[in-house]
């Protein structure tokens, strides 16, 4: 099964490499292929823009467009006259999005999850997310909220088509105005406390940056214009733009700009926020938490329903009566009535609730594998494994801060020999056996098998266990063995390697082992887990040294689309330390990179400017080669696929997929298509 996952991952990631920029599935985008490998033909002809043809639901598949059916509870409301008929709620027949799936489902039941309150907003946010364009498991994007798009030759102007008659969850029409409102009234004025996303920015060949312009064509068409080519706009939009629209009609009743400061503040207080700013942030960014805030999502939070508090002990998201997707039979989605979230204060409780069959879908730890198997019958669940795109197991990634403040250490950390020493000082076989309870093998930090830039050599580079050689390497780095049996700096001062990690990373075991191995080759090592926030703080202020299991591990689905963990773009991943800040501030702050690291940054600039996808891939591979050469991130164990437990009776759940943020973690399972048999 694992191998299948890898094969899939291979296709997926290669495609992203090649297809970026080519509007792969444009036009026909409104139809979701059953998530299988895409037709190679599309892959063969990059950069060719595709005309968007208004799509209709092929009758062959849905029968007459007129007969749509809906969930019983909604039917009841319609009959009671409390709700317009399903035809009126859905977009125009031609523009309805049809989800094609392995099996057509039936209505009813609910999904139950455990969650940690508002902290888990991304969990239930991702599984209900509806972006303009969404990823498919094969790594290509397809229109979602959008119906389709055109793009001009040099990828500077995108024309996006929306779905006629599509409605917000409060029944108000969804139009191009909502898109422009979002961009001009919320993104640019930073209404929700976020600076404009990179996906709306573009750097031209001269390196000067400019932001996109949105322009309404008609109610259901808008244009996005860039000063310079932006071939990966849609993918980036799908990743960090996520959604690109807001209910103008709703915001015009609360935003200061439209109703005045104090009025807005009053509104905010009514809604329970400290002030208009907080209101803007919460309703604008984490809007899916907000009762009554119109969305396009399959499940929404109603203003008047009892369990609509996303921080309550029990939180329920209910079916959106105006949801705009149907299945082949014309049944309005979603199948499942509601999503229920039970607040837990300790992971063990989630485990118990999985065992007793309460929880329907959850990712679980391999450490609990045995007890899960033991109670399979009772819980009525089964295992699903989704591939990971992490370069190495999270707790087995060691990031040596290349810009660590201590000069002597910096020299050391920048020295490949030292990194090699730390790498080969560890018996990966034993390490993996203990840390993964025998599920994983030892490995170097490298792209997932099958992903872009993966090579056998890379995965095995510096992985042989050889303490003697490690010692030699350390000495070659200028360290001298001290009286206490530990290496000192040439000037005789003690050398202590301070490993840092955050408390809930569960890296204690691996840290313990590493300390042992390092100690054996004569490196005095300390280890203290601090609160995640503290670690983050250290990273941003460049006070970190060697970070194990960082909050932002080297894991990327595509270095082109999501580079920040492996390429210095801002204060983010620990290994490149202050270089990130240097890049972000265009050299004003931070530490200027040197050598290969500098080369990496330069390459990334080229990458961003590159128009041609082939060229992009070429550059990307070069960048990865630099990583392979330097092993900036030391990995000790392969990343295990995400182990998922799901109720046996749930249908249409992807047997194998990739668990990564780009695919919105669980979101790629398209929960609106899942149902109980």
């Amino acid at each position: 099964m694992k191998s299948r996952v890898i094969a899939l991952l291979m296709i997926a990631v290669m495609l992203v490499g090649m297809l970026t920029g080519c509007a792969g599935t444009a036009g026909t985008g409104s139809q979701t292929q059953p998530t299988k490998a895409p037709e190679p033909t599309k892959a063969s002809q990059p950069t060719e823009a595709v005309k968007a043809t208004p799509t209709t639901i092929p009758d062959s598949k849905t029968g007459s467009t007129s007969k749509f059916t809906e969930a019983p509870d909604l039917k009841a409301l319609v009959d009671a006259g409390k709700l317009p008929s399903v035809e009126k709620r859905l977009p125009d027949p031609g523009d309805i999005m049809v989800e094609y799936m392995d099996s057509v489902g039936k209505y009813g039941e609910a999904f139950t999850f455990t969650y940690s309150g508002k902290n888990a907003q991304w969990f239930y946010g991702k599984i209900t997310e509806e972006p303009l364009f969404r990823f498919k498991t094969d790594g290509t994007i397809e229109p979602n909220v959008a119906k389709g798009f055109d793009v001009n030759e040099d990828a500077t102007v995108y024309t996006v088509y929306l779905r006629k008659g599509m409605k917000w969850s409060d029944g108000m029409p969804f139009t191009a105005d909502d898109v422009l409102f979002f961009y001009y009234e919320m993104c640019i004025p930073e209404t929700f406390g976020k600076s404009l996303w990179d996906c709306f920015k573009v750097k031209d060949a001269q390196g000067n940056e400019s932001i996109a312009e949105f322009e309404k064509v008609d109610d259901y068409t808008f244009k996005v214009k860039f000063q310079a080519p932006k071939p990966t706009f849609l993918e980036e939009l799908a990743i960090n733009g996520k959604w690109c629209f807001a209910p103008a009609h709703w915001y015009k009743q609360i935003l200061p700009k439209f109703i005045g400061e104090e009025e807005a503040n009053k509104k905010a207080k009514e809604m329970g926020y400290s002030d208009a700013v907080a209101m803007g942030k919460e309703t604008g960014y984490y809007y899916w938490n907000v009762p009554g805030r119109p969305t396009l999502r399959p499940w929404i939070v109603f203003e008047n329903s009892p369990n609509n508090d996303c921080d309550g002990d029990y939180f329920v998201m209910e079916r959106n009566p105006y949801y705009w997707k149907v299945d082949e039979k014309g049944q309005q989605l979603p199948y499942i009535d509601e999503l229920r979230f039970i607040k837990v204060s300790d992971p063990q409780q989630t485990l118990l609730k999985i065992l007793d069959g309460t929880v329907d879908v959850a990712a679980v730890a391999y450490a609990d594998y045995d007890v899960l198997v033991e109670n399979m019958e009772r819980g009525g669940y089964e295992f699903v494994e989704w591939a990971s795109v992490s370069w190495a197991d999270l707790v087995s990634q060691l990031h040596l801060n290349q810009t660590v403040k201590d000069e002597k250490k910096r020299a050391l950390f920048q020295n490949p020999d030292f990194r090699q020493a730390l790498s080969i000082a560890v018996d990966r076989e034993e390490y993996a056996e203990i840390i993964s309870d025998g599920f994983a093998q030892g490995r170097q930090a490298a792209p997932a098998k099958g992903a872009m830039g993966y090579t056998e050599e890379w995965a095995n580079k510096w992985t042989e266990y050889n303490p003697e050689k490690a010692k030699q390497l350390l000495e070659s780095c200028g360290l001298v063995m001290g009286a206490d049996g530990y290496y000192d700096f040439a000037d005789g001062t003690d050398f202590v390697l301070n490993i840092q990690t955050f408390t809930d990373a569960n890296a204690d075991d691996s840290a313990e082992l590493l300390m042992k191995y390092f100690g054996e080759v004569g490196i005095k090592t300390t280890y203290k887990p601090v609160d995640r926030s503290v670690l983050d703080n250290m990273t941003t202020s460049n006070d970190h040294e060697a970070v194990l299991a960082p909050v932002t591990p080297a894991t990327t689905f595509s270095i082109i689309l999501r580079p920040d963990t492996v390429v210095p773009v801002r204060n983010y991943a620990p290994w490149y330390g202050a270089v990130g800040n240097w890049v972000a501030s265009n050299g004003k702050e931070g530490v200027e990179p040197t050598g290969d690291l500098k080369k990496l940054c330069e390459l990334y600039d080229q990458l961003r400017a590159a128009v041609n996808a082939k060229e992009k891939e070429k550059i990307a591979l070069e960048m990865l080669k630099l990583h392979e050469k330097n092993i900036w991130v030391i990995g000790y164990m392969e990343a295990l696929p995400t182990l998922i437990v799901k109720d046996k009776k749930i249908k249409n759940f992807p047997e194998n997929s990739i668990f990564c943020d780009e695919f919105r973690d669980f979101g790629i399972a398209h929960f609106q298509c899942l149902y109980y048999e």
Partner: protein
Amino acid sequence: MRDYILKRILMFIPTVLLMSVIVFFIIQLPPGDYITSYVSRMSAEGEVFTSEDIARLREQYGLDKPWYIQYFKWMKNIITEGDFGYSFAYNRPVWTVIMSRLPLTVTVTLIIMIFTYLVSLPIGLYSALHQYSVGDFIFTGIGFLGLATPNFLLAIILMFASFKLTGDPLIGLFSEEILREGLKLSNLGSFLKHLIIPIVVIGTSNTCGVIRTIRAQMLDEITRQYVLTARAKGVSENTIIYKYCLRAALNPVVSGLAGSLSSLFSGSTISAIVMNMAILGPVLYEALKTQDMYLAGTILLTQGILVVIGTLLSDIVLAWLDPRIRYAERSS
């Protein structure tokens, strides 16, 4: 009596103030602040923050100022408009957050306390009257076991046992049904069922102390002269024990009441986390971890105040129990 209570309240104002300062100081003691913890939590979920975003957040929450200024602002608002500030994490007034938990917290705490005393008083009495008897050893032994077993472990063991036996781990105070429909007479049973584990876990750890005091006190009282006098009057043993000794022995138990109240409040935090009890304890813990300082601060204050109130109540009961105190007050 009234002015006595008033005096007590006045006395406790400086205490609370001092407490609030210490509380606030303690909360901000660990490095970082709410924003750092928030940012890292969200970026772990794939959300992206630029340094400007962070700066903006910090400014918005007024965390760019030193802690004592934040403290004074907080205090000012509390005193002037009774505004305890906003919880960063919940993004709503601290007071509403607390109020959403406080009633349940108090109820549960009281239930557990009542249980504790219902169980431990008779046991203590028994073991005092049958000192060194088998029953004495068994009961006190059980009490000690409760004391000796770390709550968090006992809790999870019981939950798993309950899962193995009944298929329902009895997590939290409410079944999903109650969570959905709210507490009704019809589902009161399941609520009580869910109370079993908390009561056993938290209750047992407190019974021991009470049993001990009662036992010691009774043994002490029984040897008093007035017992002899009463006996010489021809009073029956039961009357002697219940009319004279028990009432006298209750004295220290009652004065210990306030203490056990506070220990239930904070002492049960860990158990509450393990058992997923929707009471203030876990909220406080979270708030402390994320440095949601106004929330944490207010909760700690509330607890402190509740403890003081507890002390007050127990003193009143004491006065009722023991005329000498009443007398002392009247004369003072």
